């Protein structure tokens, strides 16, 4: 009787897990394993089937200058977007959490970029950046007499221009998490600190910021993932150019897979991206997590 009940519990448990597992396996685990397998095969073309080529694709990757370039670009992209968007989100959240006239409007304004589709805003930014008659050139030219700048068309500025769009898009989204955390924070802590005579900076640094740490962890993991995942706007803004100056790893994978149809090599690059993301996630959870203060 007891054994039967145990078995029934076990079955119920698996049944409850089943829907989520089906989706996880179908769309995450099986494709990941498939990519790993495909990375050891050549690309099938027309009548020529794929054949096992061992580590050839990996050797090609190591020797591919574009791979190293997009990897470097991706690190620069991550360094440019993560701290800036998280920092900006915190500042905006603190600001619209306080009492100020038109608070609802400010919150909405900060959140708007998140709601807009990335492809649509990229088209708007494309106009902002356009040399000559674009918004920035007209603004800077009119105010400071700057000469026209080809933000997206020169290798020195293209990636940075893409980074600015990403920060603008992301900060509002992260702000919502900070705002929710700030609203949930007990007011008594701040009041007690005030009674003790702490100034605004001390309150922020000793009370608010540490209590926001779980949110910061969550937000920064998202920011790291996004820095490898958000490439939609690159298609519109620069198409990876000039000469791959603004291409990042995922963009390059798409190009190799769906433009050049080298699915074997694309699988190899995908494996590289997966390994990189796994390392980052492990690093964040194990190192960063220790510093987080949970209530």
């Amino acid at each position, binding site marked *: 009787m007891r054994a039967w009940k145990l078995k029934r519990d076990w079955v119920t448990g698996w049944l409850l897990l089943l829907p989520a597992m089906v989706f996880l396996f179908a769309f995450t685990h099986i494709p990941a394993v498939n990519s790993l397998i495909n990375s050891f095969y050549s690309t099938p*073309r*027309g*009548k020529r089937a794929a054949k096992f080529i061992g580590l050839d694709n990996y050797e090609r990757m190591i020797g591919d200058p574009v791979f190293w370039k997009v990897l470097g670009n991706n690190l620069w992209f991550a360094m440019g977007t993560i701290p800036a968007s998280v920092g900006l989100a915190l500042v905006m959240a603190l600001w619209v959490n306080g009492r100020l006239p038109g608070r609802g409007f400010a919150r909405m304004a900060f959140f708007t970029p998140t709601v807009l589709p990335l492809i649509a805003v990229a088209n708007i930014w*494309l*106009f902002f950046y*356009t*040399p*000559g*008659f674009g918004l920035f050139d007209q603004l800077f*030219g009119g105010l400071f*007499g*700057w*000469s*026209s700048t*080809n933000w*997206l*068309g*020169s*290798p020195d500025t293209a990636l940075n221009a893409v980074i600015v769009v990403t920060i603008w898009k992301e900060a509002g989204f992260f702000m919502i998490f900070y705002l929710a955390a700030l609203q949930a924070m007990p007011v008594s802590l701040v009041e007690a600190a005030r009674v003790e005579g702490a100034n605004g900076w001390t309150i922020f640094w000793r009370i608010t910021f540490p209590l926001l740490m779980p949110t910061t962890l969550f937000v920064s993991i998202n920011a790291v993932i996004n820095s490898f995942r958000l490439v939609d706007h690159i298609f519109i803004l*620069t*198409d990876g*150019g*000039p*000469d*791959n*100056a603004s291409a990042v790893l995922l963009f390059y994978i798409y*190009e190799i897979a*769906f*433009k*050049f*149809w*080298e699915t074997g090599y694309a699988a190899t690059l995908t494996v590289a991206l997966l390994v990189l993301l796994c390392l980052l996630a492990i690093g964040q959870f194990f190192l960063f997590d220790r510093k987080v203060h949970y209530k």
Partner: protein
Amino acid sequence: MLKSTLLKAVATTALTFSTWASAQAVDLQFYFPVAVGGGAAEVIQGMTDEYMANHPDVKIDAVYSGSYQDTVAKVITASRGGNAPQLSVVLSADMYTLIDEDLVVPFDDYLTTDEEKAWLAGFYPSFMENSQTGGKTYGIPFQRSTPVLYWNKEAFKAAGLDPEVAPASWDELVEFGKKLTKKDANGNVTQWGVRIPSSGFPYWTFQGFAISNGVTLANAEGNKTSFDDPKVVEALQYFVDLSAKHGVMAPGIIEWGATPKAFFEGESAIILTTTGNLTNIKTNAPFDFGVAMLPEKEQRGAPTGGGNFYLFKGASDEQLDAAVDFVQWITAPAQSAKWTMATGYVAPRAETWETEAMKTYAAEFPQVLVARDQLEFAKAELSTYQNQRVTGFFNDALAAAITGQKTPEEALKEAQTQADAVLAEYR
């Protein structure tokens, strides 16, 4: 056991349904890309509806499939998934890629009567260069184009140039450009002389310069390129010098999509873009403008471009017969004239230009004839096996030279080495 029986049952049912459906009507799926402004998608949809109204036994599902790039990605993905469309418009330059992927069937097998065979001969030969290989016809020209030069007559007048005369040679382009480039008191440019877009697919606009310098970029077999030919280097040096030395063109990569807008805004006085933008520019330019052939060096020259109809494997003979009939209908003079007037794409058959509608249109808008006349000097758009990849190397080289990271010679040598590595197996 149960599984296999079930599968058989499903398969039989599906088969019954599909044979039943084909007895009733021929179903076709047709992908088409749109690469220019204006209402091109509505025009194609409208023409397809018209065809179906006249042919109740054929049902055509016209699917707008994004840019040329998206379209080729979609047809390859769909074909690999066993779900190929029967008909699609794909870049004419992707012919070798589609053959290499073993996805397309030639039109020849479905053109049986002498009349139908004669029909093939009615297309302009320069459009057929990228449509035929190995004695077979894989593509039927449809939304075909060629780059042309547009000039702002008011800006010409203001600069003291004859507003009716376009720059005819490379030297004149520089000379006119210098007169047309205007600066404000701070030395900032308020109007550029020339704008040649270089984003996305710079090889296409650049190819006009290579051809007029007397060199073709790839052989007819699509397995050898000549990127590092001294004449290609010279053409690229000229292209780079337009901004680096002569200062008549904006530095850096110039956006393709914003080029008509730059023209309307007076940011540039001369632009180079596809003739597919002609109707868009005609509708929106707030000033009088002229259209001319690309400037010449050793000869006139321009690449052709744009999309062809392709037939895909996996379709039944009835479907392909119906598809060929549809293609013949839509490229016939009446439809073709409508399409050309709606977009500016070059009608690919001489007979279209002889229709009353076209003649009337050309009489009041002679600019439409320039692209057709340029066909005499046009060469095939750069096209090789693994086309996207090989042109990708070339695009990267052009971008590196235009942005001054590499010298033209250095960049082109590198691209040639990369292209050779890919194409060696096709020789």
